[in-house]
């Protein structure tokens, strides 16, 4: 973990209620896709944990949905504004287990962490399929970005306004894959757990206090021990999860 002051490079709306923010600063502590950063906002006591969508040596990109007063304030910030941010939080995804043809499954605001993961896996020469689930077409973002990485990209929308009508599992059930990685809402996880044919990794969300393992606010039981979603997670391997 590192604390640093980041400057907003850009902060723009990319879908209904969804914003992409690019921040420049010391990203040296971000090690794996699926990690998150924790942002201090003026007027709010707790930091806002947001998963990393993409990062390089000098910048980190996050995608967030305006769901409350905190994210609303974030959406109104301008390029040039500075933010106090903790980086390198959480374990992130383990890409060494992907096999040759992993599938990445993102639902709604669970889509962003799939982007850097996809990038890493393709760099590793993997044959990556990506399933992105949304409620409706105007919530969709990053279609081109995923395609430009060279992944096979499938869409599922609850109302059928784009891609397959239904849920990510309606796509997943007909795919062949060596391993799966997923981030999204709990009902989606349960649906995946019911039909997944391989091992995989789930990235969990929980209301956090500190985000770095001090407060035990986001504890969770696994088959083998109690863990902290923020520090020992947010990514858990399928085999250890207690549903």
């Amino acid at each position, binding site marked *: 973990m590192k604390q640093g002051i980041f400057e907003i490079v850009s902060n723009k709306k990319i879908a209904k209620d969804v914003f992409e923010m690019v921040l420049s600063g010391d990203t040296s502590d971000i090690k794996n896709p699926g990690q998150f950063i924790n942002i201090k906002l003026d007027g709010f*006591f707790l930091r806002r944990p947001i998963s990393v969508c993409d990062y390089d040596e000098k910048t980190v990109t996050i995608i967030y949905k305006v769901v409350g007063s905190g994210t609303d304030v974030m959406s109104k910030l301008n390029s040039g504004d500075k933010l106090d941010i903790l980086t390198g939080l959480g374990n992130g995804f383990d890409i060494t287990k992907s096999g040759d043809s992993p599938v990445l499954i993102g639902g709604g605001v669970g889509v962003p962490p799939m982007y850097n993961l996809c990038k890493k896996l393709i760099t590793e020469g993997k044959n990556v399929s990506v399933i992105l689930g949304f409620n409706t077409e105007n919530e969709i973002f990053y279609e081109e970005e995923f395609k430009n990485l060279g992944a096979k990209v499938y869409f599922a929308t609850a109302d059928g306004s784009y891609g397959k009508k239904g849920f990510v599992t309606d796509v997943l059930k007909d795919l062949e894959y060596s391993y799966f990685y997923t981030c999204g809402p709990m009902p989606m996880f349960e649906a995946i757990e019911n039909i997944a044919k391989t091992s995989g990794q789930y990235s969990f969300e929980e209301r956090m206090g500190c985000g770095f393992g001090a407060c035990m606010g986001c504890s969770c039981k696994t088959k083998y021990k109690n863990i902290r979603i923020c520090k020992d997670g947010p990514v858990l391997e399928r085999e250890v999860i207690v549903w």
Partner: protein
Amino acid sequence: MVDLKVNLCGLPLDNPIIPASGTFGFGYEFSELYDINCLGTFSFKGTTKDARFGNPTPRIAETPNGMINAVGLQNPGVEKVISEELPKLKKCFNKKVMANVSGFSVEDYAYTCEKLDKEEQVGWLEVNVSCPNVHGGGMSFGTSPEMVAKVTKAVKAVTTKPVIIKLSPNVTNIAEIAKACEEAGADGISLINTLLGMRIDLKTKKPVIANKMGGFSGSAILPVALRCVYQVYDAVNIPIVGMGGVSSAEDVIEMMLAGATAVQIGAANLINPYVCRDIINDLPAFMQKYGINSLKNIVGGAH
């Protein structure tokens, strides 16, 4: 050259800064962020006789300038604390630690304190009496002078190290409770534990945290903490460890003027993990600004 040294129940502290229990784990994880030997000491995660997972999640809610937590004393139990956590701490902390103990019966407290008292790494026992008394209809020990006296006597009977009783502010007369602790043999008082608070989610229309209510902490509660420390300072002659909403060097000075010999930092650690180190670095400049040469000389100065 300003002097930050204080003495807490007979043990010297390089400075009065003490990360509060439940916000600093067992220390070693923070030692990856900075050398925690710069601290006066720290109070480790509330430890009970048996291991506890604590409450269901969500356990955290935000409030204006504060937060609510309902972790529920998650800890591995005193045996594992001694066999696994303290050895890890020994590798990165060469000072005495404050052992924070919780219990649900007088026997619990005595059992856990007796075990921890024997550990040479432990310098003080901080007894959290805000937990519900399972043999007392769930009412918190800390709400009755008789009960806190019972706990204090039981712990003192089986320990040799300074016993500091950590009081809840959710009472009608905290001075009376503190007096009862002193008369029962307590070596110090620490306060305030969290206020009881709650938030409701307007979308779900239900309490934000699974446990409904929880402990309210953060800058918001500073004025209540200062008032309680001020009242208790007038009521007892044993040292006070002040806490509640402290997040800056100036807050530390204010808390000591109210009557605190040492000061714990709680929720602030969760927002800025470096806050205790920063406060220790900031203190000399603020002492000069306010004409303070030695911190030990300002304790209770506002009375």
